[in-house]
């Protein structure tokens, strides 16, 4: 996986999280962000970011990290 590829996804998620940041508590927002990713992202994008769910060094904001964790959990159920 190229670094730029994961960087792009991180940038996108952080942007989504930031724009939703006032929608509620961090937990609520992270759920909304993960729902947004589920709804609009293609499977390879979801799969790639889920692979990094435990990686603290890819630049995800706290809400984004929580969202990715939710997403990874959903992905693992599939």
């Amino acid at each position, binding site marked *: 996986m190229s670094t730029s*590829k994961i960087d792009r996804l991180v940038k996108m998620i952080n*942007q*989504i999280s*930031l724009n939703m940041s*006032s929608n509620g508590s961090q937990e609520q927002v992270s759920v909304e962000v993960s729902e947004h990713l589920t*709804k*609009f*992202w293609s499977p*390879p994008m979801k799969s790639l970011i889920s692979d990094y769910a435990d990686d603290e060094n890819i630049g995800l904001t706290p809400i984004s990290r929580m969202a990715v964790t939710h997403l990874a959990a959903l992905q693992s159920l599939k």
Partner: protein
Amino acid sequence: MLEFYEPQADFGTPESDSETMITLSIDGVNVTVPEGSSVMRAASESGIKIPRLCATDSLKSFGSCRICLVEIEGRRGFPASCTTTVEEGMEVKTQSDDIGKLRRNVMELYISDHPLDCLTCPTNGDCELQDTAGEVGLRSVRYGFEGDNHLVAEKDESNPYFTFDPSKCIVCSRCVRACEETQGTFALTIDGRGFESKVSAGQDEAFMDSDCVSCGACVDACPTATLTEKSIIDAGKPEHSVVTTCAYCGVGCSFKAEMKGNEVVRMTPYKDGKANEGHACVKGRFAFGYATHKDRITVPMIRDSIDDPWQEVSWEEAVSFTAKRFKEIQANHGRTSIGAISSSRCTNEEVYLVQKMVRTGFGNNNIDTCARVCHSPTGFGLKTTLGESAGTQTFASVAKADVIIVMGANPTEAHPVFGSRLKRRLREGAKLIVIDPRQIELVSAPHIRSDYHLPVRPGTNVTVLNALAHVIVSEGLQAHDYIAERCDTEEFSKWTKFISDERHSPEETEQFSGVPALDLRAAARLYAQGGNGAIFYGLGVTEHSQGSTAVMAIANLAMLTGNIGREGVGVNPLRGQNNVQGSCDMGSFPHELPGYRHISSKETRHLFEGEWGVTLDPEPGLRIPNMFDAAIDGEFRGLYCQGEDIAQSDPNTQHVEAALTALECLVVQDIFLNETAKFAHVFLPGASFLEKDGTFTNAERRISRVRKAMPPLSGKADWEGTMALANALGCNFQYGHPSEIMDEIARLTPTFNGVSYKKLDQLGSIQWPCNDHTPAGTPVMHVDEFVRGKGFFAITEYVPTEERANRKFPLLLTTGRILSQYNVGAQTRRTSNSQWHDEDTLEIHPHDAEERGISHGDWVGIQSRVGETVLHADVTSRVKPGVVYTTFHHPVSGANVITTDNSDWATNCPEYKVTAVQISKVTAPSSWQARQKSFNAKQQDLLAKARQ
């Protein structure tokens, strides 16, 4: 609907919309018409034509020609029937010896100063003066032709599309009134008095030097050959016509394509077209010559590499070459390694078929459409807040608006026919708030001045919208009852808390937006308290990193003030291309099936799977920017691109070019070898809108028929090309006519259930939803409740774009359109419209220009973080200091070489409207422009070799 050529019916004066009916007698026949109708109109409606010259039903009655005189029982003299309104019990005589004599006398005077060259006149057989002379029985002219006259007056042929021959003018003022009433430009006037009276463009200038915008309203209104289309002068009178829909902007004007055989000789705005009601603009009315331009490619072509010459082949060979390549790519790189981009310039049926081919033939959801780069935030924002991804009104609804907000749109340039409607309402007294970084025409035009112009700094729309809402809430101006009844009150409470925060006050947001707080407060009060409030917005709202937030903020404002659900109000996205609404409706996004139903819905998938006989992938596919990234990463290798020029229109051109170059098989279906096709391996010749049947859906959700006026030059309409490719990939598409595709759409899409070609022919057009509940369509949406049930007030936090001006890039570039050119210019650049705009220029404020030593007309380099291009400078105060502006109609301009990859957080709609740049005086084109020139020359050479 092929018809032998007949001029469109003209009732003489406009229709009255009164519901009170009046009965009168005309020539002994009882006639019942609405109160306020003229006697002339009443007579016309009962089948009696009163001769006339200065009257036409698109203009208010004027009463100058004195031909339409009648007798009315109990009244003295001979009143003009055009200016006399009907009264109960009135008894009118339209014919008598005295009337006949008077009419002949008047006619005699007209004809004594008119060239008697009828047999060689271009409007012979289509001339109201000629007809009227016949109707009044003129047989001789007693005054002779030797006296003073205007027969040697000089012709003005400056306009590329029509001539002005004053020797044939009868000074009826129809052209002047059309320019005022219909178009709203006020470019024409009657100069002089008495015998010296003459029609004059501007200050007695040539038409091309005047303010004339070439809409053609004057030409339509002219009853003689004074204003005549050059195409008619060249080709003669049409012999049949076909009613169809314009393929330019999202207004979706209805036209009669007037034909001689298979040649279009004139496009006449169709009076029964509900989007335009007989009006047009310079593009739809005149710029149709591209359809038969010498650059059209009408034979399929293939090549192994973009460095190879093209090879002309049969349709069968091109389709089988493509199918083989696509199958190989999928075999080697997986099912999701190919995809398609459909076009908002194509018909509903065509875009439906492309997404169906992707979902059933490619076996994935990698389908996206050019709406990704324009109005995808509209779809997201309006669906979230109101429940439907569409505008709420008809265009005609603006006639009942009291306060109009125009935000990030420039209707007089980009949606000119709607712009004329808007201007008419403003002249009647409606108030106007313009929110735009530029001083667009509506800010100050003849007889129009905006009440407030809020010159927002690019990228800060959300702060302005939030501040407007803040003022309304903090001053208690919201529509309490409406919100309580129609909206989700729990969410509203949350939102009220959010918006009431002081950070959204105009005094706080001024530092970001540059909009003076006092003006903003006044504008908010006006919108909330001024009666019917209507918001019209465009790409200046959507094409931002917060585009979706801004759309939701607009919907919030409308709900907050109770301005949704009736005529005269609403949220109205002005769509850029002719079928943006339709392409979105037809399931062209990678996450949605037709009718905006998410692909993850099992129930919806089962419906389509039952009809299509395949299993559908339940996961979303790639969006256009994802496709580009995946292509560069080597994961996406095959693309079918129909009717779009992504190499010119999408942002960060060098990134797009790298993606296209990385593809193993790029298939372009288009009418020209556009910029994208220069990277292609297969070229499938497209059909212009004149060569196919189908439907377009305009910005008011109005579905209108596109009718074939001539056979496809390549032998196939676009839907037939797609069908051939789909079948070569293993599908079984068996459509004999696009009406069968529409029948399938109707079967599968609840909002289209009641739509059919038969009904479209009966009703003329239909605004969806059209189903059992609304069989004639839905002009105004959300009347009793919102589509989603309760209106949702979305939290609209302002998140600044990452694209910031700094010392290195101190100015903000924003982009837009101009009247004469359209989108990437592929069509309009191949017409005489280029006489108005033959290059894109950079608008820069005099202060910024002076600081850099730049004068008007200088070559300037525009450098952003991603690229550089060079344009001529247009030093103007239309832009404010700190902001520069350009258009993107010419490929060589490279406007998108400088726009960035930044995009809307929710939809990835590119942020075309905000790019930090530096401007400097230069002497040579940019390195990209030099490369583009060389690449273009090489590709043109490879094309020429194929055509030899």
